[in-house]
């Protein structure tokens, strides 16, 4: 049992969980502060149990604050809210309405070297954010892993300092997503857990571990169960919850298919015991969603989750837990300092994210969707995992086919075909 008194964000999630509700959350960020503020206010008023999100733009993510400032001056469109370029005054105003409405807000970014971003979070008293030394480096940058690890160490320590201001900061690992697709669950579960341990080692006491919906409901339920079990084993005493991401890969193009997939993720949250769900909208395959599209998705997911009970029986066991555990143990053996262990693990290939082009990732592993429609390894690289079949040569059309597996299935389903 955790003895940590969580901050507003984690407390809201815990309270909803006690009521049996899944918290739904948008991925939302706009460059214009008025739009951002209105977006938060609208989410707060939606008919769903929500928390707010400020998603940062890509210039801010890579530390190009000057480019963000120029875009603001020129009126060039931004794909998120430039928290550093806007500065504290504007950010406070944006947060004010959400705070007045009692809705906690999380800042989501995707930055391998987030010092400036954390300074802004601290200056604005933002008690929840997201990231991780691996999950915000490999998918998001060309920054060497060692530098990202060192930067995240400093940022975790600084963020833990919010406690002195009377607020327990909350940090979510993005490790359960990585590149969003074609990664078998064992590795996703292992990375998010290791990042949780890294956060704890650097002073955080309230963390969430993530998992992104993949290609098969039963496999996903098994992965979430594995994550629950590993949290109990490796992160005792912390305030923790599991956050699920609605599918993070190539999304269905049709509205019906998109909603069907969103609904499936809401049911998965219930079956897998996830406390919080980050939703996607029918705009996903096409462009950044509007505020209204976000609210519709939140309300839809919330309704589906509310109508769904927990899973009927215990999850199956095809080895996700054992795989994740083997990966975690292989990493922890490398060094007591988890950051150093992570760097060594990638150098040795004990962790190897499939299809990831980052220079510190060996790139020897490959995931694929097997004949039963589940994720499996076709090439394990040097990881302590088992390959289901020999590698096949990767072609451009084969890659597109694998990447569009979920999209095609749900667009067909949306068009009225039932799945086989």
């Amino acid at each position: 049992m955790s003895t940590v008194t969580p901050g507003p964000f984690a407390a809201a999630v815990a309270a909803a969980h006690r009521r049996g509700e899944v918290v739904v959350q948008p991925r939302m960020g706009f460059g214009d502060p008025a739009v951002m503020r209105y977006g938060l206010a609208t989410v707060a008023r939606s008919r769903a149990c929500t928390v707010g999100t400020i998603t940062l733009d890509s210039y801010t993510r890579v530390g190009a604050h000057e480019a963000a400032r120029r875009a603001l001056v020129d009126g060039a469109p931004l794909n998120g809210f430039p928290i550093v370029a806007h500065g504290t005054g504007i950010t406070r105003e944006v947060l004010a309405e959400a705070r007045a409405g009692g809705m906690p807000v999380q800042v989501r970014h995707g930055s391998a070297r987030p010092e400036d971003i954390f300074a802004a979070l601290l200056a604005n008293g933002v008690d929840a954010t997201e990231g991780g030394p691996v999950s915000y480096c490999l998918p998001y940058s060309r920054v060497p892993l060692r530098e990202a690890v060192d930067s995240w160490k400093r940022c975790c320590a600084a963020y833990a300092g919010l406690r002195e201001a009377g607020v327990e900061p909350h940090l979510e690992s993005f490790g359960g997503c990585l590149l969003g697709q074609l990664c078998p669950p064992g590795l996703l579960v292992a990375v998010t857990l290791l990042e949780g341990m890294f956060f704890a080692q650097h002073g955080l006491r309230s963390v969430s571990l993530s998992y992104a919906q993949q290609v098969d409901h039963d496999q996903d339920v098994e992965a979430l169960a594995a994550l629950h079990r590993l949290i109990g084993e490796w992160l005792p005493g912390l305030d923790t919850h599991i956050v699920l991401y609605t599918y993070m890969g190539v999304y269905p193009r049709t509205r019906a298919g998109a909603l069907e997939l969103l609904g499936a993720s809401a049911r998965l949250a219930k079956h897998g015991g996830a406390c919080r769900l980050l939703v996607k909208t029918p705009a996903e395959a096409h462009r950044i969603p509007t505020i209204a599209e976000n609210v519709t998705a939140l309300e839809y997911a919330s309704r589906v989750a509310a109508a769904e009970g927990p899973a009927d029986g215990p999850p199956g066991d095809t080895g996700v837990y054992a795989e994740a555990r083997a990966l975690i143990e292989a990493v922890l053996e490398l060094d007591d300092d988890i950051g150093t262990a992570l760097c060594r693990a990638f150098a040795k290939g004990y962790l190897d994210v499939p299809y990831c082009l980052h220079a510190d990732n060996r790139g020897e592993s490959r995931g694929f969707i097997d004949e039963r429609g589940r994720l499996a390894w076709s090439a394990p690289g040097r990881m302590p995992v088992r390959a289901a079949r020999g590698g096949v040569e990767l072609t451009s059309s084969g890659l597109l086919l694998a990447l569009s597996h979920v999209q095609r299935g749900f667009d067909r389903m949306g068009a009225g075909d039932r799945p086989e």
Partner: protein
Amino acid sequence: MKDTRCTAVLGTVASDSHMWNLMFLQLLLGEMGYRVVNLGVCVPAGFFLEQCRQHRPDLVVVSSVNGHGYTEGWALAELLRTDPALDGVPMVIGGKLGTAGPLDETQTADLLAAGFDAVFADGSDPRQFLDFVRRPVLVEAG
């Protein structure tokens, strides 16, 4: 043995970290007979230029899907076109280039004026791109 293939330099704009598009284009260009230099994600414009100087490409392919492709792609093309070594080298851009869905005609014209020879909007017929990249290979072979 000497590599006689044409070289394509492939990359994205400085703020864009999406890599599946790059992975796909690397495979596709490879299948088309190119030697591909994949610069990866978040390529600073200066580094892009430096790599082009070093590899003397026959084709430059910029792919961006994060919504900043229009703004940053424009500046990147202007920079690359300042280098005489890239004079006449075909340069294309494609992907999800704006934050509000497909670019309008003026925006596409801006990218062409900045130095791209072709702009492939998201959802455009892949055959157009294949026709385009086939051209330099044929010139070389003939």
